[in-house]
């Protein structure tokens, strides 16, 4: 249900009224016509090589390209970046949006430098993910427009991360942190804050 009712943020929206400077600057950066660099184009060729050299094979590159675009840009997928992916695969933008809105790992809004994803499903819940989430929220502080005021953190509650035997799990960007508790979660945020 949540998957069906996602919104795409348009850069044209009134982000300029936001009180979060980091959010504003991220939105401003997203308002550009994106282009792949030479190195990036070379990498895209290696992605294409995995799939059959025909129309159907080309469409298969959509998920890998969205991942790549998100990683290479700013950790999220503004519409103009999706347009670049659409042009690369020669498919309509709406097809790209259709797919990007289906998968939760594609961020349709700017996220902080550290995206903290907390699993709160059954195994993590039994081992105390509730306390971990509360502790993270307390330590990170106020969230405005999806991220903390210093632009460092976004906290998302996610579904099972598939590491139940090492629960509770928190994912920091791409890395898993295992067996968290209220104290370790607090320390985790403090460490990341110090790192900046």
């Amino acid at each position: 249900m949540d998957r069906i009712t996602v919104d795409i943020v348009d850069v044209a929206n009134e982000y300029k009224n936001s009180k979060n400077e980091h959010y504003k600057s991220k939105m401003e950066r997203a308002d550009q016509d994106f282009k792949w660099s030479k190195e990036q184009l070379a990498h895209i060729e290696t992605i294409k090589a995995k799939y059959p050299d025909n129309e159907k094979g080309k469409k298969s590159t959509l998920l890998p390209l969205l991942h790549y675009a998100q990683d290479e840009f700013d950790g999220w997928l503004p519409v103009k970046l999706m347009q670049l992916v659409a042009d690369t695969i020669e498919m309509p933008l709406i097809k790209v949006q259709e797919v990007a809105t289906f998968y939760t790992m594609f961020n349709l809004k700017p996220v902080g430098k550290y995206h903290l994803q907390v699993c709160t499903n059954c195994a993590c819940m039994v081992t105390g993910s509730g306390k971990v989430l509360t502790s993270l929220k307390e330590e990170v502080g106020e969230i405005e427009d999806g991220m903390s005021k210093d632009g460092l953190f976004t906290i998302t509650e996610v579904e099972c991360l598939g590491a139940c035997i090492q629960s509770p799990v928190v994912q920091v960007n791409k890395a898993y942190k295992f067996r968290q508790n209220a104290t370790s979660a607090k320390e985790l945020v403090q460490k990341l804050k110090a790192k900046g």
Partner: protein
Amino acid sequence: MSKFAVSFEDKVFKNLDGDLDWSIEGYKERGGYDRLAEVLAKDPKEIINSLKPCGMRGRGGAGFPTAIKWSFMPDPTDEKPNYLVCNADEGEPGTCKDRDILRNDPHTLVEGLIIGCHCLQAKTAYVYIRGEYHIESVRMQEAIDQAYEAGYLKEGICDIYIHMGAGAYICGEETALLESLEGKRGQPRLKPPFPANFGLYGCPTTVNNVETIAQMGVIAKKGLDWWTQFGSENNHGTKVFSVSGAINSPKNIEVALGVPLKELIEDFCGGVKGGWDNLQAVIPGGSSTKLLTPEEAETAIMDFDSLKQFNSSLGTAGVVVISKDENLLDIMLRISRFYKHETCGQCTPCREGIPWVYRDLEKLINGKGSIEDIDKLVKLTHKIEGKTICAFADGAVWPVQGLIAKFKPLLEEKLK
């Protein structure tokens, strides 16, 4: 030692815990890749036929006999090559076995894929790994590269590629996975046609779980007699169980199928936190399977057929132990919320019904409504179950049905 324990020699996944060297050198020391050429010299169809009596059932949840599934594959043609797709989109809450296979024992999977490709006459295998498993996919890619270097994989003869998912539980359903691999929304296809006839890019395709493919490779090498010494008729072999939750030593462990649940929890995993008497309920095979009460857990046998007597199933063998210290109703509501989040939105009974089930359950747990509403909720679940393209909706209502069937007094208490 328990008769269900599996010796180091007999384990399919010798490095499941990650204590040993995962790389190709370590794997070969443990007997990996030896006699592979012998298997590859045999006729593919003969191998499949010889494997049919092995009682190997798919480890991804449905438990369909793997050799039978393989036998559905037609001969490839130039226009329509055969594909083998490995389902590593592990997302069922309570399950994390494939992750440990990918990061600690990736070569068992690579070797299984090589043998699988040979049996299915496929030149290309895709490994669909869930997007969150970044480190695991890097490890798997390293293993694939090593296998190319050592000459076990050869370009154009047998290629393995990794394709990353992007966070959608439904992509673990085989046809949704294929749609996702084709660059679309992961919405399951209507069957028939089955993937063996119309799979990836419309070509014959077999989709198997990580554990299944790895184990099939080892059975093809070691033979039926070795495999059938474990488990019982129709439920042979070893199996990786993920045991988590309120347990003293949560772990992934490979034991013989047919292990009693109590033995698995008490002897292999250090017991329930606070002792066996502190047990409130057990989810036996991932969040979709129906709960077991402590009395049932006392005698339950962990294989595909035995759990049916408790109206439950083995599923993915992700055991979640829930003790009396936890609020069972909150946990089941959380599971219901998971399904509400993950419905793909294709079929109306699921798209509309699963959030409805969640809202009704939430109301009851908050003490709103009457005893009759409990029965209404059960009726509602029966209107969803079996009415959709894939089995997602069934898996979404079973935990609620199981809760009401076995723990109704907990709900009634709330409504007093």
